């Protein structure tokens, strides 16, 4: 029989935090969409649609940009970090709402992914502290977000591996705290990412810079 605190943090608290996050994102998206945007009217030389597709797909193609081509390790680090983050977030849904999916093997696989992300996070944090280029532009939110996500990853791994109520509570409380904090922090970058990549694809696709040019 699950204790009432764990039930509360697993369900009620998560639903509240998720609703908060959803509302905050709706407001953010509304704020972006209500702003004016000059429209491209020059006759197009390439495909805007293809441009947007390419723009989104570049993230998965490390050789598409010189920055990732020359810093392949950074791309790998990014990939491992976000895969682990995805697994950690997925677990916040599957543990309470689809417990039958969480077999021992699934839990351990997820724990491995999140451990990878945790290790990459340590590297990210270290780099931010030692690189003069990054230190110059870093804000307290940069350090806090990275460090906070590390704590979240750690609790995720412990919850997945042990399944103990104590770690589960820590995991779900951290998750809820993060869901509430995310809209105010740089962690919310993925909302604007969809807009930014679309804008990039529209312009650079239309001009035939990242897409084939029509005659």
């Amino acid at each position: 029989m699950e204790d009432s605190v764990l039930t509360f943090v697993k369900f009620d608290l998560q639903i509240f935090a998720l609703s908060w996050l959803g509302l905050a994102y709706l407001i953010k998206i509304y704020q972006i969409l209500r702003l004016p945007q000059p429209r491209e009217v020059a006759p197009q030389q390439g495909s805007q649609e293809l441009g947007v597709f390419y723009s989104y797909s570049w993230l998965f193609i490390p050789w598409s940009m010189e920055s990732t081509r020359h810093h392949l390790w950074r791309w790998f680090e990014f990939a491992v970090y976000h895969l682990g983050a995805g697994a950690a977030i997925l677990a916040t849904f599957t543990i309470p709402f689809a417990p039958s999916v969480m077999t021992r093997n699934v839990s351990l696989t997820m724990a491995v992914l999140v451990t990878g992300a945790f290790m990459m996070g340590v590297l990210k944090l270290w780099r931010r502290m030692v690189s003069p280029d990054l230190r110059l532009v870093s804000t307290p939110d940069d350090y806090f977000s990275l460090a906070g996500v590390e704590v979240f990853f750690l609790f995720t791994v412990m919850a997945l591996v042990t399944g103990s109520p104590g770690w589960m509570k820590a995991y779900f409380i951290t998750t809820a705290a993060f869901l509430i904090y995310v809209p105010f922090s740089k962690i919310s970058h993925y909302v604007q990412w969809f807009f930014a990549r679309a804008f990039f694809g529209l312009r650079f696709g239309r001009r035939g810079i990242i897409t084939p040019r029509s005659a």
Partner: protein
Amino acid sequence: MAEEKNIVQRAKEELKKRYTRNMAVASSNLCVHCGMCIDQCHYHKATRDPKVSPVAKAERIRRVMKNEHDWLRSILPWWVGARELTEEDLDRWVEAAFRDCSLCQRCIVNCPMGVDTPLVMATARGVLTAIGKAPQILVELADAAISREENIDMLKEFFLEQIKSMEEELQAKVDDPGARIPVNVKGAQILYVPLSGAHTIMPEAEIFYHAGTSWTMSMFEASNYGVFLQDQVRAKRITERIVKEAERLEVEEVVVTECGHAYTTSRWEAPKWFDRPWKFKVRSILEVMDEYVRLGRITLDPLRNDGRPVTYHDSCNLGRNGGLFEEPRRILHACIKDFREMTPNRRQSICCGGGGGLVALQDYEEVRLKAGEPKAAQIRATGAEAVVASCDNCRHQLGQLNEHYGLNVNVIGLSELVANAIVPRRVSSEAQQN
């Protein structure tokens, strides 16, 4: 103090006017300060100075934007780096936007997030121009272009005299007293817009002559310093001179000379400023020459150019911002024997450091030449003896880099190479008969 408040207030109002959807995204938490853009910038490549990385430059503006728009701005501004704008900030913006950024777009192309840092820098330029902090020489050059239209009747006679003298030169060159450099020809197919100076008129006139083109030359020059200032009012007025001329002469297309920003402005940006669609299309002379070569309207013999190895510099505006990558290369392959690519090239080309109006800013010459160091290294690595640049600002900067870094190269325009390689029509048709 009151004046300072006034200028800061005006800057804030100008920022607000420029707060578009794209700008909101570019100045938000989208930038995670990952640093992937840092070594993509030629300023940073040349100096390794953390203050000139794209993210550091944009952050100066972004932090002020955050102070207006970030959700934590009123309770924890320091937490997200938000700061109140001061006049000292504006002075630092001048350095960041006009001196330490040529708006080359290399950072956005290499940003995994798609942060539009050039837009942030361009916005800063627009704000600084509006509050009177832009470099004066750029303002004067933009105003001079506008006053040319106002005084065109006075200047016309002198202009036509110059053209007459160039026409005589053309006639001697092509050995045809009937060869013309036409001006004000209604119904011509092409309105060709050059820059000031014969170097953007003579080679093109020769190419048009041999291709049998129906053309007329613009009374105005293609360059648009309003764009460097990000001053849409001035930029529109400068473009409008050519639009009105094209409409009056009822031409089918406006062809812009070898000039990066003039092409991108006329082809991609300016149509947004007008509330009516244009009745003509806009192309670069590169596209026209490429078409002539592909369709056989001109015949080129690479042996007519000396056999020196040649490399091509992708102007940021023509290439990364305009989409003209293959046209110049097809032309080059047709008119020279030994073509060598720089690495990286095309979309990933490194800026020469002269874009964004920087070649006109003498005060920043030292910084500009330092920023051109990566380009100089690229050129040296090719072993080329000539560098082709299809942008006048790039040509100017590359010429200076040549001297400064002792590259021993000749910097030339593509149309010049094409004009050199043209097989005269008579010879060409004789050869075909044989």
